[in-house]
């Protein structure tokens, strides 16, 4: 372990990936991996919903206040940086910070609502940014297993990159950060076209037909590109590609059977951490092929 004290950054899980939630495997794998490499994550005490879901569509002030409260809590416990692995949360936190910075009146209202000051100089990062900024050398250093020609299609979805003027993360049209991480784990990233196409997101309940069409195109394109697995960094994309895969296969009577893993799980496998501890047993499409590739 390094001698000097590891940098500590705030960890904001959000409702989707916290313990006991529908995509908790993303959360558990992120925490498990952070025990080995990268900065120490400390969950923000008394965090609340980031106001992503319907809130930001219906009540702008409410959703902003919800986000800012989390940031102010982190500030008070002295964090300069907050990791929000779920892109919906990181996007919401960053946009709220910007809205408050641009609109004095909104800032005052929000501060009154949360009874805490917010001066907004805390940096919000997503999981890919965390790995790229802190862990690239450590992965290379601590990698124990290299998978045998495991071809992986990296799928970014939309919230990680858009709106580009605000998030300013990677190249919104042709991102490469996940590919670099996948390469670091020893797997082989494939070149495919739809890595930034939308998977239908929240419409998965209201307009399942549209989601089926979009996710089918994505899976089809990934399989055609020769991918053995799809890596994601967003619980919503994972849900639409993994949970829905059986229904898509039935709808378009085509066999995909392509596992959808989180990038944190891939890194975990490369560090030879137990698959169960990474939550790999909680997927709809069996991730066994990926685990064996690392054997």
């Amino acid at each position: 372990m390094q001698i000097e004290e590891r940098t500590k950054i705030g960890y904001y899980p959000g409702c989707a990936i916290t313990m006991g939630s529908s995509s908790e495997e993303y959360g558990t794998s992120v925490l498990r991996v952070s025990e080995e490499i990268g900065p120490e994550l400390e969950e923000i005490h008394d965090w609340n919903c980031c106001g992503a879901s319907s809130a930001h569509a219906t009540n702008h002030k409410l959703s902003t206040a919800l986000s800012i409260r989390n940031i102010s809590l982190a500030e008070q416990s002295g964090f300069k940086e907050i990791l929000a692995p779920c892109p919906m949360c990181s996007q919401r936190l960053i946009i709220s910070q910007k809205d408050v910075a641009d609109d004095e009146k909104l800032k005052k209202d929000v501060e009154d609502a949360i009874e805490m000051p917010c001066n907004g100089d805390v940096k919000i990062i997503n999981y890919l940014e965390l790995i790229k900024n802190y862990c690239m050398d450590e992965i290379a250093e601590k990698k124990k297993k290299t998978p045998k020609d495991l071809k992986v299609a990296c799928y970014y979805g939309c919230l990680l990159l858009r709106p580009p003027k605000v998030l300013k993360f990677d190249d919104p049209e042709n991102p490469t950060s996940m590919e670099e991480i996948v390469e670091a784990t020893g797997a082989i990233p494939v070149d495919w076209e739809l890595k930034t196409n939308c998977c239908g997101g929240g419409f998965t309940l209201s307009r399942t037909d549209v989601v089926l069409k979009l996710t089918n195109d994505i899976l089809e394109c990934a399989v055609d590109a020769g991918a053995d697995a799809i890596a994601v960094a967003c619980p919503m994309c994972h849900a639409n590609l993994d949970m829905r895969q059986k229904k898509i296969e039935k709808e378009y009577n085509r066999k995909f059977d392509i596992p959808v893993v989180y990038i944190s799980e891939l890194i975990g496998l490369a560090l030879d951490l137990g698959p169960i501890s990474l939550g790999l047993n909680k997927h709809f499409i069996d991730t066994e092929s990926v685990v064996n590739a690392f054997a």
Partner: protein
Amino acid sequence: MGNKKIGVFVCHCGTNISATVDVEKVAEETKKNNPGVSYTTTYKYMCSDPGQKLLRDKIKEEGLDGVVVAACSPKMHEHTFRNAAIKTGLNPYHVEISNIREQCSWVHPEIPVGTEKSTDLVRMMTEKVRKDKSLNAIKVPVTKRALVIGGGIAGIQAALDIADGGHEVIMVEREASIGGHMAQLSETFPTLDCSQCIMTPKMVEAAQNDNITMHTWSEIESVDGYIGNFTVKIRKKARSVDLDLCTGCSSCWQVCPCSKIKSEFDMGLGNRTAIYIPFPQAIPSKPVIDRENCILFKDARKKNIKPNDSKVCRKCIDACPIAPVKAIDYNQEDEIIEVKVGAIIVATGYKELEDGLYGEYGGGKYEDVITGLQFERLASASGPTEGVIKRPSDGKEPEIVVFIQCVGSRDPAKGCSYCSKTCCMYTAKHTMLYKHKVHHGHAFVFYIDIRCAGKGYEEFSQRAIEEEGATYLRGRVSRVYKKGEKLVVLGADTLTGSVVEIEADMVVLASAMKAQDDAMEIAQKLSIQYDKDKFLSEIHPKLKPVESSSAGIFLAGTCQGPKDIPETVAQAGAAASKVLALLSSDELEREPVVARVDRQLPPVFSTCIGCFYCQKVCPYSAIESEDIKARDGSVIKTVARVNEGLCQGCGLCAATCRSKSIELDGFNDEQIYAEINAVEFN
């Protein structure tokens, strides 16, 4: 001096002025209050013939020796009214303009405010007129030679017109051959005649015209001087080929080993050798060595030795049949030559928007997503595919081609908000060329609006739809991505309100026409203005479209803004005619707004004390020192003297001189003092 009889003519300008300024009241107030004003009137259109006649008559009848015309901006009609005065014998520099339209009636809606301000502006000018002195035009010799910067169709046409007018022309072209972008086109709209056929004769004519001296592979280093007397330094970049000896026999570029260099002329679709001529009909058809990619020069650079000493590859020089001295010379250096010219025409053309800017359409990653000019090369008989439409990736004939309009144009987010004017026409042409060559193929065109407004243009685009069967879809394309062999084009068709997904074999982007990268540099070298999109600015969009803000420098073609070939040629002719007018007289009359150093009778001689601050600040080094000598030859004092020929009338010296011993005619101390004095706010 002070008791001039001044006439004030207040113009209605139709209703442009009289709508928000009570012109009668202005005239009346002026007559009542302004000293020296003996005659005032108002008229509907001062700039019209009757208006000017009124002016001329009143000058004679009333015996006026000072005139103030309160109308539009002096930039519009100062010249008109001063010429009218000349006809009556009144020195034009006793005529001043009050700008009560652009800077008053048009921008201040309330009548009382506009009227009061106009009265003030008129008073400022009547006070200035009282201090005006007669100035006579300065005669300056004219160098009977013109310079044309740029060898595209605009430059060639202008050079030919001037040469036919009997004057010498120097043409400077940056590339190895003249021809510009037009040479790259296959057929040209609306007549579909092949660009090579109509342009090559003109290029040859220009080459053979003994009035035209052509400098290709050369750039403008610096431009000094002023109208009629420009001194231009031209950098003739080292070609490594001696133009006089070389006969263009092509034996050298046949043997050149490195032939995988992307040809700029073919927009990267074809390759060329290190020693090359850009295209078969190049003028001069003599090669140039690309020192970046030639392995001999690379080796010389690596070893830091003289190029000729490197022995890595001597194929071209060995193959050169010219004896006894070879036409190829590796050690050739850049050469700076200086020429004197009387007028300059800027015809530096445009640059096509690089497709890398559009990530949504593959951002330069997909070989089969090409730009308009690249399609021209595919369709051109002298192109890399000899006119056969093939996909650059695998050479297959594309069954379905999607043309996307307005790529870059009309898109402020991508930096140019203007319409590039020619894409609608050349895309329609592209669908025709495609259908003529691939009969069973199908062309889709995504457009916002079809703007084919020239003569025969609308019929041309209708023909593309009705006869050639191109499918025009009104909507924008959101994304192009590769799917297997195909290119999936996701777009919208707003007329049917549906999402469109086309699996195409090839996509052609109608890329925007942008200003050259170094447009700003050229503008600053010539000290002419450029607009927010870096296109060169004309003095007046309607009345002086081909004149730049610097006297003696004219603009032609796309460097001034997007336009098609007919318009470019028309502008070239217009610019040439302006130059011919300029060069037609032996002497040029120059604005007599020049600086003048105080001169008095002895014993003072001059209040100038000879500190020469003026000489140090003058941008045109128009100020010399002069020794005032006594009869016995001893120097009494050394003072400054202005060379009227060089002085451009900026007034820098007058503002720097501490004792105000040097003043600018037309803006001298008394005139400016009178204007400030008249600003009095009551």
